[in-house]
């Protein structure tokens, strides 16, 4: 029951919470692209790969009380902090769902900015293209984000690190 929900709770539990809806969106997408068994459907949006299904599932988890969502005010915007509740921990102990170890990869991504993860997710979205084509496509679809050559080099390094 609720296997896909349980996988998300596990990711959030593994890293003592995740701050930022965008960050969560990109973390799950990157993990999915790396072969982790997430089933949320992603499509390309203005800000890169985005899953409405994931957004709705997170709302379900907060409405059920498995995950707490705290809205925090930043200088000119709000962001959301997600943490697993006691009930969420209890739910995990009853769930038969199996997912490979996620602690290291999630904490690795958590330290990065959501802007950087957006770049990595976008590059992975175009992984059927060559490296040069990916870079050209990123500049084309994310013109306003002004990613530099250095940003992309760092993203390639990060992808390599995640894969190995």
């Amino acid at each position, binding site marked *: *029951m*609720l296997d896909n*929900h349980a996988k998300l709770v596990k990711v959030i539990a593994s890293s003592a919470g995740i701050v*930022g*809806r*965008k960050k969560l*969106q990109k973390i799950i997408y990157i993990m999915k692209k790396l072969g982790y068994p997430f*089933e949320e*459907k992603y*499509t*390309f*949006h*203005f*800000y890169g790969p*985005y899953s*409405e*299904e994931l*957004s*709705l*599932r997170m*709302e*379900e988890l907060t*409405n*059920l*009380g*498995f995950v707490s969502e705290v809205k925090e005010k930043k200088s000119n*915007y*709000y*962001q*959301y902090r997600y943490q697993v509740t006691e*009930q969420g921990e*209890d*739910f995990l102990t*009853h769930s038969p769902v199996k997912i490979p170890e996620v602690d290291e990869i999630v904490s690795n991504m958590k330290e990065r900015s*959501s802007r950087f993860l957006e770049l990595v997710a976008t590059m992975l*979205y*175009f992984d059927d293209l060559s490296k040069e084509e990916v870079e050209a*496509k990123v500049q*084309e*679809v994310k*013109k306003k984000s002004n990613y530099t050559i250095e940003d992309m080099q760092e993203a390639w390094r990060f992808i390599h690190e995640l894969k190995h």
Partner: protein
Amino acid sequence: MMAYRDEKLHEEKVFKDPVHRYVHVRDRVIWDLVGTKEFQRLRRIKQLGTSNLTFHGAEHSRFNHSLGVYEIVRRILINFADRPNWNKEERLLCMCAALLHDLGHGPFSHSFEKVFKLDHEDYTKQIILGNTEVNQVLLRVGPDFPQKVADVINKTYKDKLVVSLISSQIDADRMDYLQRDAYFTGVSYGHFDMERILRVMRPYEDQVVVKESGMHAVEDYIMSRYQMYWQVYFHPVTRSAEVILTKILHRVKALYEEGYQFKMEPTHFISFFEEKVSLEDYIRLDEAVVYYYFQMWADEEDSVLKDLAYRFINRKLFKYVEFNPNLQMKEWMELYQLFHKIGLDPDYYLVVDSSSDLPYDFYRPGEEEERLPIHLLMPNRELKELSRQSDIVEAISGKRRTDHKLYYPRDTILKLSDDRPEKKRIFELLYQ
């Protein structure tokens, strides 16, 4: 000689349409695309999948809808033609993308995608770029034209304004399906003043915005989306049919994997079971083929497959109760054991279905740059997000209702002898 991309039909062709009255075609390219076998296949795919088991009128196809989206975009572009920010050169590209945006949908695509790990958007792209009649037509426009159409549909085209006509929070796709689904299901919600919205839409940098004076028409559209979600798309009976359909596909795949001998080889499904679906296999699987197999499976030896297929064909659906997976976790575990005891495999007959299991969404104002919201163009040329201006929209786009339902075969359990303690306990747990 006129270039193929600019070629007009000698006389305008019209399709009679119950939603838009007429769909007008003057461009040779559009007419040729409609005639391709891949586009004609959409006649054999229902727009609303299993909803016809709840709303018997809902038999309309993806073909109707695709023509409708094309027609809306055609009308928007008449309005945009001489406005600043709009590049007229993109007209044909927009109309082709509108017409072809659902090309890769298969029969009951939501369930098929979940069970067989498919993505209809991938197949849309493959049909547009692969060795198909559609690709041949698009290639005649220009060597890079198929890729451009695929990019617009995939939302990765460089001109975001073009993309937002086909997919955004107030796009031609949604405006067509809301009205069309309302018409064919026969419900009284789902209607809004589209003509008014089309008149107040404006191209603005890289997005489509709506003049502030049109806010009330947009409110109506958002309300209609909200109501259609709960009344039609998320109808619990439709969800029951979807649950059974999904379980049939899971069962038949599991049987194939364990080497079960089917009475009739499920030829059309084998590449789906093996998750190696070629474009050719994908295109030839339409609803008629699926129903044929379901009829065959209703005569199989396997009791689970036989029962589920019979239920789907004859609308013997599962019943449901509201379910809270947090508060009722213990009850769930007990039910799971009880179902085993009475010989019903709970993996097929005790199913929790959640609101996130369906592919429809509400309006979301879009915090943290998640998704571009609807912007109103104020008289001073500033943009304001819709829910900040409209109390109605703010009220329905805040904290949203989510739900979970537990589906089970009530008829089968009722047939158990009253002497069986499991029967009494199951009903106690379900209806406590």
